[in-house]
């Protein structure tokens, strides 16, 4: 592996982070927040690290990057940048070091799990930074980097692939650079529209911008302890719910809708299944809530729709304490956590397309028992899915469940109950945020022991980078520096 180029790119990424940190710093100066020192310290530290890395790496920066360097840069970036991004909370005396890094990883991975117990006490510029980490992490740190910086050569595809979500390569445009720019345009566009709508619905400027950031990134940080409950406004709930669902869709698909018309949406198997899941689960939960709790039908539907949209898009906003809902509704929400939204979105989870392909493969396999020599193909949006993709997805599913089990076991070793541990890992590996019980809708992750927080951080990073990017690091071949095949 070419360590110099990795160092160089990491240095460049640090510099980008440093520039981003200037935004809350300037806001802190404007508003006179006491945490401006914390931002200044972080910016200086980031600048130093970035300088050192770039200096060390510059010599070989002309070389192209291969798969290994791509993976190393992306995983390195997600560890280094999330660590640096958490320092303001630590320097500002808001959280201890582990919690600060937890908060930052939760931000960049768009999880939205928080360890801050009293959000009111946190300075506004810090809250802005919190939402901003969502927004930067949502589409991907590396995607921003590719879109904004000058051309880095063809090898950049490896970085792009290591970070972007989904099983299949569905780039809409031939070049990574133009794809990234297109994605960023849609992303910024959606965020702007949402911010304006929220402002129109009665939020103040600060709230509308931070909530727009959190929603489009499917993050879930709110600037209030009670999340969306605070606003007590059905209109705001509906706007956010619709945009959460939109943010859970494939951004590349929206791009083709722009060029080929709205029909594209319904011809896309994944998007169609996604909407179908939302509708069906909303109906199920509405019925369950109306039957088992005292809610009226309309009220039940309102809360059910919002929560389904929030969980399937792995955002994690809360409009009603779902921890007190009947067990069946909770089961449905946990199921949505695992499913997640569409590939190529900012959401986490296994992704609808993978689930659909797994189901279709299962049906084909059952048919094959009766017709052993027949050949069945699995189709998505009219196109046949290659076998290598199917095997990759099966392994992904197994690995997801395996890691879920192992991480839950580790978390349970800190003394949490089984339900709490399962809920917390399910919610964080899918980057949802609020879980069940101890880390439930109205609670925070603050009471969890430091070791448990580290386990959850690992879950969030693994989930965001879709397991394989981080897991290949444990293969010995990855570190063998002899030659590339």
């Amino acid at each position: 592996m070419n360590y110099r180029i990795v160092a160089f790119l990491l240095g460049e990424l640090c510099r980008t982070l440093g520039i981003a940190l200037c935004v809350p710093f300037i806001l802190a100066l404007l508003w006179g927040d006491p945490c401006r020192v914390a931002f200044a310290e972080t910016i200086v530290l980031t600048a130093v690290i970035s300088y050192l890395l770039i200096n060390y790496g510059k010599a070989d920066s002309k070389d192209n990057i291969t798969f290994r360097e791509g993976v190393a840069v992306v995983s390195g970036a997600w560890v280094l940048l999330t660590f640096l991004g958490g320092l303001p909370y630590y320097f500002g005396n808001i959280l201890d070091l582990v919690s600060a890094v937890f908060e930052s990883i939760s931000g960049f991975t768009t999880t939205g799990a928080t360890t801050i117990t009293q959000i009111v006490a946190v300075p506004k510029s810090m809250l802005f930074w919190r939402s901003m980490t969502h927004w930067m992490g949502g589409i991907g740190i590396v995607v921003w980097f590719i879109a904004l910086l000058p051309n880095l050569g063809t090898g950049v595809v490896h970085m792009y692939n290591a970070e972007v979500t989904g099983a299949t390569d569905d780039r809409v445009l031939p070049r990574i650079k133009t794809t990234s720019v297109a994605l960023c345009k849609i992303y910024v566009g959606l965020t702007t529209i949402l911010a304006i709508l929220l402002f129109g619905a009665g939020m103040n400027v600060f709230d509308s911008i931070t909530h727009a950031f959190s929603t489009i990134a499917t993050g879930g940080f709110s600037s209030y302890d009670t999340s969306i409950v605070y606003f007590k406004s059905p209109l705001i709930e509906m706007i956010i719910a619709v945009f959460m669902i939109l943010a859970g869709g494939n951004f590349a698909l929206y791009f083709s809708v722009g060029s080929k018309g709205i029909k594209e949406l319904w011809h896309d198997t994944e998007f169609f299944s996604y909407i179908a899941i939302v509708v069906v689960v909303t109906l199920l939960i509405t019925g369950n809530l109306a039957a088992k709790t005292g809610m009226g039908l309309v009220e039940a539907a309102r809360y059910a729709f919002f929560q389904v949209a929030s969980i399937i898009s792995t955002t994690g906003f809360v409009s009603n304490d779902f921890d007190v809902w009947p067990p069946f509704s909770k089961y449905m929400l946990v199921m949505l956590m695992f499913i997640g939204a569409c590939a190529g979105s900012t959401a986490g989870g296994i992704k609808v397309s993978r689930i659909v392909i797994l189901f279709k493969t299962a049906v084909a396999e059952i048919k094959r028992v009766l017709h052993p020599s027949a050949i069945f193909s699995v189709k998505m949006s009219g196109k046949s899915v290659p076998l290598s993709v199917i095997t990759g997805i099966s392994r992904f599913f197994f690995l997801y469940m395996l890691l879920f089990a192992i991480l839950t076991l580790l978390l349970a070793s800190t003394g949490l109950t089984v339900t709490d541990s399962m809920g917390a890992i399910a919610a964080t590996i899918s980057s949802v945020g609020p879980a069940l019980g101890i880390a439930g809708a109205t609670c925070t992750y603050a009471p969890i022991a430091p070791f448990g927080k580290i386990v959850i951080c690992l879950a969030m990073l693994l989930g965001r980078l879709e397991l394989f990017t981080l897991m290949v690091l444990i293969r010995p071949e990855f570190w063998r520096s002899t030659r590339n095949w």
Partner: protein
Amino acid sequence: MRKKLVLYLWGRALLVFAACLIVPFLMTIYTSENRLAEFGIPILISIALGKHLSRGDNPYNGRLSIREGIALVGIGFFIICILGTLPFAIAGFPLIDSFFESVSGFTTTGASVLGDLSLVPQELLLWRSLSQWLGGIYIVLVFVTLVPQVGRDAMKLFTGELHGESAERILPRIVETIKALCIFYVSFTGLIVLGLYLVGMNLFEACNYAMTIVSTGGFSIYNDGLARFNSMSINLVVLFCMFIAGGNYVLYFRAYQEGWRKLVRDSEYKGYLLLIAVASFLVVVALAWSGVYSWSDSFFHGIFQTVSIITTSGFAVGNYNSWPDFTKFCLFLLMFVGGCSGSTVGGIKVSRAVILLKSTWEELKRTIHPHMVTKIDMSGVNVPLGLREAISVFFFLYIVIFFVAAATLSLVDDLSIFSAAGISASCLASVGSAFETVASISGYAVLNTPAKIIAIITMILGRLEIFTVCVLFSPDFWDKKKIV
């Protein structure tokens, strides 16, 4: 599909079934003559039906098509479960409870809804144990001998042999294998009876426990189960026999023929040993650490409960529901894995788990070198891609069914998340014991009727390895035009 053939074979099976019913019938004569109907009626029905179906010449020519095999195994299992219901129903238990008990017996699950066992007549207790014993041998024989003839990759694994030999070549060996397995099963049961008798059980107890141990079932004849005996020697005999029963019978047979070293060379058996070692270690340490038991007690309880759950038996000596959550979650995960293929255990099975792990490890390598051709081995034999795919699909379906069952259980009976998940995982893997609400094996009595029905469906799905039931209910299976 040759309907005549399937009906004929069902008929023969029913006659064997009637013969088995004679045992508790004789016991009824011995204990109480006014309860003769309990087993008399089912015997008459089985004989009449069996004779009627198997009249005429034997149409079996040594070949079965896939459809015939599945109809025989799948629907045959339902018929036996229904007939097994009759003794309980005639004795006065509610119909759904009787059916539950019968299914739980034949699937070797061991979940019970009869309530206070001291009120249940002895011959019915014997019948429960016997049904598990029959269920055990049924599963071993069916999946070791019949399914590989007809089934595809996903089922092939049961033999523990991955070579895709054609039916003609296996056939002479099949008769030999069936005989060997039966002898092994019966003599192993006999040995357990002897062992339990020697350490202090009476003959009736020893027979009952031997049958439920060898089939990894878990039915007990006392309300407090094994704890009643309060004897370490009994517990150790049970522990050892459960451990043996969780291994592959075909492998034991081969090891007997070719030397015991074959055991430790087998990838699955190695995985089984390793899994027990690691899981026991975790449970023992967590128990001792939390101070529930002393170190020596944790050592015994940890290993006993781990082996009991891995082999999907479900026997309990201590109250593991009051153990720390970490150990409970360990046991919960073990339910999913289960023991070795080619035995009476349920669950995903160690061989499948090992292949899944190896495939994932290989996939990581393929991520680094996308064009590399890789292969994976089990005991030195290459695992074909089709089989790996079938196992992945099996795993996916297993998780989906687990989840759907858990969610519907929580819907119909308002169970907490973990107790619903526990029941679902436990029934799917034919373990029996679960957590919280259903703390003990007999705790299933608190469930309401819809929840019992869901548990029954889950048990059958798990026992018939999901694929059999899925195929049985697929429209293609009933489509007459598509004859295979």
